[in-house]
């Protein structure tokens, strides 16, 4: 293949990668919107809005399928290397994680439906702040992905501990609300479930952040904010 041919082929490939990125972005925005709508339904005790959220989950699943199919086709046809390879493999992983964010949004919407019919909990404690931080992490993880921003991604990973602490505090808060107001037991249990789902969403946002760091810096970062567990340096290493 002449250099001109190969440059032309890679322009077309860049176009295909761009389309895939846009699909992934659309999927991520949909998931973020689903989480926000479900949380709004919780707050406003709006069972109908909650049901609308539940009904829209299929769109995210459909986007995931399309992304998966396109990615597999590109892997087979282009046999990508280096940065392109990392991007495509991570695209599969990211879309799976986003699909799960969508599932958690559905869980929250289901809580919202039950909450709409239950006696409210007088004091939801840190739940609002927890929702704020978790959705912020999701939003920033997506932004980091769009902008290939490893710094922002690292920042997202660092916020995960805060969400875990909020989860504990909401759990304890709801336990004490249950003892004080036995009538609010049903709602308090649902609030615990909401918190649990938010905690999972924050975990998935952290995964996303780690994936972005990998795409950008080719390093594997796992579980703990900013900490590099292994990187792909092989200098001087001879045994396979």
């Amino acid at each position, binding site marked *: 293949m002449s*250099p001109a041919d*190969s*440059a032309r*082929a*890679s322009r077309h*490939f860049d176009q295909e990668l761009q389309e895939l990125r846009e699909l992934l972005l659309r999927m991520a925005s949909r998931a973020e919107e689903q989480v926000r709508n479900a949380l709004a339904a919780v707050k406003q005790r709006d069972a109908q809005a909650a049901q609308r959220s539940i009904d829209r989950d299929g769109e995210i699943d459909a986007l995931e399928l399309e992304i998966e199919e396109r990615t597999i086709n590109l892997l087979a046809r282009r*046999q*990508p*290397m*280096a*940065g*392109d*390879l*990392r991007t495509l493999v991570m695209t599969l992983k990211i879309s799976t994680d986003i699909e799960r964010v969508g599932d958690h949004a559905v869980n929250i919407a289901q809580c919202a439906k039950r909450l709409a019919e239950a006696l409210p909990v007088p004091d939801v404690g840190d739940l609002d702040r927890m929702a704020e931080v978790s959705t912020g992490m999701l939003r920033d993880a997506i932004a980091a992905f769009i902008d290939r921003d490893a710094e922002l991604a690292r920042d997202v990973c660092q916020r995960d501990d805060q969400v875990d602490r909020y989860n504990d505090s909401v759990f304890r808060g709801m336990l004490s609300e249950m003892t004080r107001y036995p009538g609010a037991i049903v709602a308090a249990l649902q609030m615990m479930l909401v918190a649990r789902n938010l905690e999972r969403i924050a975990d998935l946002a952290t995964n996303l952040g780690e994936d972005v760091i990998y795409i950008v810096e*080719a390093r594997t970062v796992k579980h703990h904010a900013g900490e590099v567990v292994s990187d*792909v*340096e*092989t*200098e*001087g*290493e*001879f045994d*396979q």
Partner: protein
Amino acid sequence: MPTIRVSANGEAALETRDVRVRYGNNEAIKGITMEIPRKRVVALIGPSGCGKSTLLRCFNRMNDLVPSAAVTGEVLFHGENLYADHVDPVEVRRRIGMVFQKPNPFPKSIYDNVAFGPRLYGRPPDLDDIVERSLRQAALWDEVKDRMNDNALGLSGGQQQRLCIARALAVTPEILLMDEPASALDPIASAKIEELIQQLVEHYTIVIVTHNMQQAARVSHYTAYLYIGELIEYDDTNTIFTAPHEKHTEDYVTGRFG
């Protein structure tokens, strides 16, 4: 730049020190220092004209045969500079064999092609055994054992290339240099050569020049990326093709070059 270092434990099959090659006023290799580890496959990649073939020819003094080429620097083989005065280039080429892009068998019988080298370097009594062993190692024996006296030019392109590999193996080299050995072959014949390379590396050190990135990724342990006579990056093949350190390498392996 990460690079491959083996000299510490003495495992390098070949080592270059500041090798430079000029063709008249054109410096084609601009000071390359690298180590080729023993019993490993090293792939040389890079755009056309970057100096892959020129560098490969330095490894067994093949550039001596190019009148305008002037080589400086050292190529160490068993601790000895191949370019030292007393070294016999013919002996160098016996111990470090070369296989070319276009299969180039002699217009003689299959047997005579393989027996050519051993006959040249003395007349071994066990010539039949050497021929058979070489053809087996080159994964060609089963296809030609009943037609050893047929003319080699009657073989298919892929068979001819394996015959050339058998011919190189017949003089018991330690290193095999291959310059785009599969680029003139169809995909199946090419896959057979790749398969063969992976078998041969149990006994030999192999340096292969290839334009096919997937091929380099499939067969080599280490990959060196050259650009206009310079070694830009030399690392573990996995690193080169998944996460190279140099932007230039990344642009080349992803096809975004130029």
